[in-house]
């Protein structure tokens, strides 16, 4: 291979993730596979009601069709709903994290590179934005936008872009002061090439870390919003909705509420471990200490 066409991220391609990063990555991968393969691995259609078999406890006996994790108050299979719910969680996590990353990175780059009044304006906007409690802000946004999956993603993006913007702005400012940016400018790099070749590769590690953490946050926020019924329609299984549905029979059928809670906790832990592992591995201060 021509050495000039090698990948630009040596520290990532050669990454040795700490053990916790691997654990988080595996967990996320596993849940991702479950979400992707839901139609094939789900033991039953998620909305199939069986009013003769409501609130059945988990059944692990012998072969044959069982409700592995029991049924809820409408006789729907909890495991099936859990599996399908993972899809919603991942769609929201992916969409919201990607959206927040794009908006936050763009504004962070602009603020960090241009400095001056632009930086002041964007930074104050971020301050203002962050002064709203995030859950209240997202609820308000959903009231304004109307419920629905797309709007949930949009609401999370609108609430959480500030996290990306703030962190990446300071990172860009550090990079901007490096001599290699001046050197590239003297060699004739235009602003776009400068960002693409010199600045952006430097913030990729942080960006990846933030995306992983943001995905965990998005899963949690989506659960909160579907809990209050502001997310997906009632016929789409989502973890938050499952918690809301199972709340009434919590003492009679704890499995129906523990299952989605467990799923949310596992997913968030997975994303957080992955993000933490990436951060430790890709921390720019540790660059070059190979």
């Amino acid at each position, binding site marked *: 291979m021509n*050495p000039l066409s090698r990948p*630009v991220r040596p520290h990532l391609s050669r990454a040795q993730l700490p053990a916790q990063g691997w654990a988080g990555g595996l967990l996320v991968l596993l849940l991702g596979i479950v979400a992707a393969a839901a139609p094939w691995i789900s033991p039953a259609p998620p909305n199939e009601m069986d009013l003769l078999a409501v609130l059945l406890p988990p059944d692990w006996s012998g072969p044959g069709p069982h409700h592995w994790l029991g049924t809820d108050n409408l006789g729907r299979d909890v495991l099936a709903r859990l599996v399908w719910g993972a899809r919603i969680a991942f769609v929201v996590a992916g969409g919201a994290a990607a959206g927040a990353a794009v908006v936050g990175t763009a504004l962070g780059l602009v603020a960090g590179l241009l400095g001056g009044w632009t930086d002041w304006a964007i930074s104050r906007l971020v301050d203002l934005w962050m002064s709203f409690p995030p859950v209240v802000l997202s609820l308000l946004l959903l009231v304004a936008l109307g419920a629905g999956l797309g709007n949930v993603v949009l609401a999370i993006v609108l609430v959480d872009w500030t996290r990306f913007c703030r962190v990446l702005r300071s990172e860009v400012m550090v990079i901007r002061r490096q001599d290699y940016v001046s050197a590239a400018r003297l060699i004739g*790099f235009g602003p776009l090439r400068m960002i693409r070749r010199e600045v952006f590769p430097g913030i990729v590690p942080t960006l990846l870390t933030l995306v992983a953490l943001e995905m965990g946050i998005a899963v949690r926020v989506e659960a909160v919003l579907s809990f209050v019924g502001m997310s997906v329609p009632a016929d789409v299984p989502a973890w938050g909705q499952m918690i809301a549905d199972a709340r009434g029979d919590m003492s009679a059928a704890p499995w129906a509420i523990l299952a989605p809670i467990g799923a949310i906790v596992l997913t968030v832990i997975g994303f957080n471990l992955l993000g933490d592992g990436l951060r430790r591995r890709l921390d720019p201060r540790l*660059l070059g200490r190979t």
Partner: protein
Amino acid sequence: MSLLSLRDVTVTARLGGIDVELLRRVSFELAAGGVLGLVGESGAGKSMVGRLIAGLLPDGFRVSAGRVMFDGADLLGQPAAAVRRLLGRRIAFIPQEPSAALDPVRTIGWQFGQHLARLGVARGMRPARAAAALAEVGLRDPAGVLGRYAHQLSGGECQRVLIALAFCSAPALVVADEPTTALDVTTQATIVALLRRMQAAHGTAVLFITHDLRLAHDVCDDVMVLYAGDPVERGPADRLFTAPAHPYTRALLAANPRLTGPRTMLRALPDTMPGPLAFAAAPGCRFASRCEIADPACAASPPVWRLVAEGHDVGCAPACQAGLRRVAAAAMPAPANAGVPVLRVAGLGKVYPGGWGRPATVALEPVSLEVAPGEIVGIVGESGSGKSTLARLLVGLETPSSGTVTLDGTDVTAANRANDARRRAALQMVFQNPQSALNPRHTVNQLVTQAMEVARAPMAARHARAAELLRAIGLSPELGGRYPFQLSGGQRQRVNIARALCATPRILLADEIVSGLDVSVQAQLLNLLLRLRDEMGVAILVISHDLSVVRYLCDRVLVLHRGRMVESGAAAEMFARPRSDYTRALLAACPPDPLPVAEGMPT
């Protein structure tokens, strides 16, 4: 009896799964009131000796053999509490970074108070004692300094405060680790003079750790040279530098540019010092791989110490006794014939406007200069002299407040697209610090051909050019696939130079490109610049605070002081007969050359 003595001290650390001897059988004696210099390049282990005495070896490092005796007692055998009682009282330290060694959030007075309290001085006595100590180190307003913070003092003042702190317990031994490296030449001279005055007044012994041969020769009674953890030679400073016996000492001296005498080519050692991980593979003399007179036995058997003269001994394999070849120093290449100036600067100046009651700051008063093709022009000045401002104005990173820059007859002062392109084609800059000037995420090949990336040159052409450039700067093209962190400091600086050469500029602007590099690597780079000038006919503007570097390289020199040009002219003329007071002060501040000039450089 000697105050401090090290007997065959070996420091071992476990690195990469193997035990590495980072210091090997280090022995020396420091008499009470004497000054011993520890000299070596970075990685030689000289600071390790200081840390050893302070009991501050890093985790995992241990003294595996030998004894450290201080004032008749074994320093290593004593309980930690007993050693702590010695430190700061009988043994004091002067650190390398004066401004970093003082607590930024406490006043100087508070820090003095803490130290005096530890020494058992009564509370009421402390301010007077502190003021007296500060007055002794020549600080003008001692009482005022006590109320100030570190950031309100200059680097030289901070170092004076630290010297005062070190000496106020009347210690028997002061360990000074590169105490003047972070300071300007003139400040260095005053600090060194102060240190010597204090040492003589108090009869204190000083262990002086430095990489600067010139300084060691000037300051020390005795000197020990370290190479890769091995002591290689020790003796009286005068003898060691006039009649060096070890090939490494001789090579160091031959690589050090001189301030007097005829200008001759520096003889640079090949390669660099081996790192600690390579030590295990070298059971014998660690210098053997770079030694001109080594034979195969050298690499296998450890060096043997032998006496060269009274008090002067050398650790070198017996083969060395066979005698030393003398090589006549090569003459410098003649400067290229000056033609039509390629760069013409007229009245270039920079003023930063004030505002809201702040006065405007004059960073650079109008400067004029001309550079002919193939000429090397030096710009000399200390920090705050405006030399970096001048560089940034020339390359267009800052807009001048007055004056013009003319390249090849075209005025390129105004900042616009066409002028930027002209400037780029004719003038390129090599940045001071390759650590920050090379993007850690690009390979060497990508870095050196960045100029072609802008022109969207095909990959094959870039690859070919990269190999060509690497050969031109003396690196193997195989290094092209590496990332900067996989290179040594000297290699990085070469890559830095190669990048600036990619678009074959007519002028290279080299901003302090050898500061912070070791003598032997510095000599390699200086010779590289001379060779590039001869082969490519490129003119070079050398910005430096180091007069010996400027004298070695430059045909003409410009001296800046506080944003004003105080002298300009032919280099030979300026060094022989400096006209301005500042230039004279600058020259006087440099420690004198160690070798008698008439003698040919032994090799």
